């Protein structure tokens, strides 16, 4: 593992954008983990409405009298948890479909990948909107919709990787030893196919944050005050502009910086893991 650590340090030293991305993501994680212990108020405490920034309310209060800083800091938690949950759903579902398609081949492959083609022949944001419409406008359903819509990209990538790995000698060897197909798939093929999935997962977390925020902005996330989530906080501010202009600005900036962090990191990882673009 220390070899991996050394490689990571060398990678970040050479790849400035990835370093910036790592710092941004680390800052957001740190805020989500430690922030609530540092700030003076809880997100549910009620104060004077629309208090000016300053004093014990560095960012002021919102239209309900909640402290904006508290909501933003707790919002880092919910926003990240929601994005990671969506992305994980995409990852697990997409990896399963892609791995089975690539490993089984034949009719199963054909059917699964045509399904993926069809799913990808709809604009993904519209597909997510319609999925929420079918499931009902609630935050949970937004998570599911964004997760489902993100899965096909993973499926395609994993299938391509599996097809590459299946013809490697160690897999041929494992098969000729007579190991069961599921064991070959899970212990030999999949672990060696996951490099690009890490890249997609990093980039996917960023785009999940954007999609969730977008769906929430359209009012598809249900009750906007149920949890502090950045997209919902932005939307509340937007609905109370111009009094809550600062709220919109701050929430949007937080989303932008976090997504930018994941994208910088993901792009860097792609360069590092892709032998074609590596060290050129």
């Amino acid at each position, binding site marked *: 593992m220390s070899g991996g650590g050394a490689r990571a340090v060398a990678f970040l030293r050479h790849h400035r954008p990835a370093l910036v991305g790592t710092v941004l993501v680390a800052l957001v994680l740190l805020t989500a983990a430690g922030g609530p212990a540092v700030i003076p108020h809880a997100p549910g405490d009620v104060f004077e409405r629309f208090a000016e920034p300053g004093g014990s309310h560095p960012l002021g209060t919102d239209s309900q009298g909640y402290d904006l800083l508290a909501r933003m800091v707790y919002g880092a938690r919910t926003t990240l948890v929601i994005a990671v949950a969506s992305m994980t759903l995409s990852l697990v579902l997409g990896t399963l479909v892609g791995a089975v398609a690539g490993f089984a081949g034949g009719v199963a492959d054909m059917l699964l990948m045509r399904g993926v083609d*069809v799913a990808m022949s*709809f*604009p993904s944001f*519209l597909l997510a909107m319609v999925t929420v419409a079918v499931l009902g406008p609630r935050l949970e359903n937004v998570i599911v919709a964004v997760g489902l819509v993100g899965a096909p990209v993973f499926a395609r990538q994993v299938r391509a990787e599996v097809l590459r790995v299946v013809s490697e000698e160690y897999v041929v060897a494992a098969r000729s030893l007579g190991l069961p197909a599921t064991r070959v798939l899970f212990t030999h093929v999949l672990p060696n196919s996951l490099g690009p999935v890490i890249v997609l997962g990093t980039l996917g977390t960023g785009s999940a944050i954007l999609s969730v925020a977008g769906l929430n*902005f359209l009012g598809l996330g249900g009750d906007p005050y149920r949890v502090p989530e950045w*997209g919902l906080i932005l939307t509340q501010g*937007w609905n109370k502009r111009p009094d809550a202009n600062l709220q919109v600005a701050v929430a949007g900036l937080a989303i932008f910086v976090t997504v930018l962090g994941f994208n910088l990191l993901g792009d860097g990882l792609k360069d590092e893991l892709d032998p074609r673009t590596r060290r050129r």
Partner: protein
Amino acid sequence: MFAYVLRRLGLSVVLLAVVVLATFLLHHALPGDPAAAVLGKQYTQAAAFEMRERLGLNDPLPWQFLHYVEAVVAGDLGRSHVSNQLVTRELARVLPATLELSVAALLVASFVGVGLGVFTATRPRTWWDVAGLTAALAGVSLPIFWLGFLALQGVGEGGLLAHATGLRGLPLGGRFSPAEYSLGPWLESHEGATGFLLWDTLFVARDPQVFLHVAKHLLLPTLVLSTVPMSVIARITRASVGEALLQDYVRTARAKGLPARTVVLRHALRNAAIPVVTSIGTQLGYLLGGAVLTETIFQWPGMGTYVVQAILNLDVKPLQACVLVVAVGFVFVNLIVDVSYAALDPRIRAGGGGA
């Protein structure tokens, strides 16, 4: 080439069939009883039963599907139960608004995106390159509704620029400001108006003043909507032109003494065109879906705001129709992209691969 186009056409037909089936199933997947939605306050069990009978909801599913296909083919997309208007009529109102915005945004995105990509690719590893790539990455990381908000705060009416300079600032939303002109009567008073306002004001009404008014409304939404596709196109152009510039034929062209301009435009860009054209095509699909957020911020009376209302009201027919229209548009755009691939790439034209 012909065989390739034919095969590609076959795939599109299959996709269209799946799209029609999917929109049909959507009707049944949506929560709530459509009959109750139509009846609203006049709901009684007997009336609901009768309404279900009238709407054909008691028929077997395959039978309902056949009726649905028949109606769609005949151009009958049903009525909205909220406005009680024909959906086709409402689409005729909202679709031009979205298309005008999307096409304008795609034009801006393509020209600036390809330009930026070529500009950075020809200056690899300079500050220009780094700045361009960083801007493009920032562009795909922006929540577009936040960008719209910032744009309005900056250059909109009553925004920062207006305060600083005393200028009026750009309109805050809509395609037409009702205070000055009213869109519906204006369109009706002009025979042959298409709903594409730039065209209508310039070529139908021939009124440069109204044209300017309309263009001012279009400017900010277009710029905001174009950011994401512009960034994607710039990144792909940068990558593929950058790769092409490292190839032997570029070295040969340079060694022949061709001017740098010719080398870049005729040799590098042309060989890099396929991924660029693909990205432009897929971005048009993105725009048709992604215009939703932009339209919401700028109160643009297009399909985006229409579909959001349909979802929030569980208004089945408009929702079905919008999904149908966007998906069909998407299928056709992809078809055109793949065919223009073939025109650009002799390997596919020859009928060989084309996977």
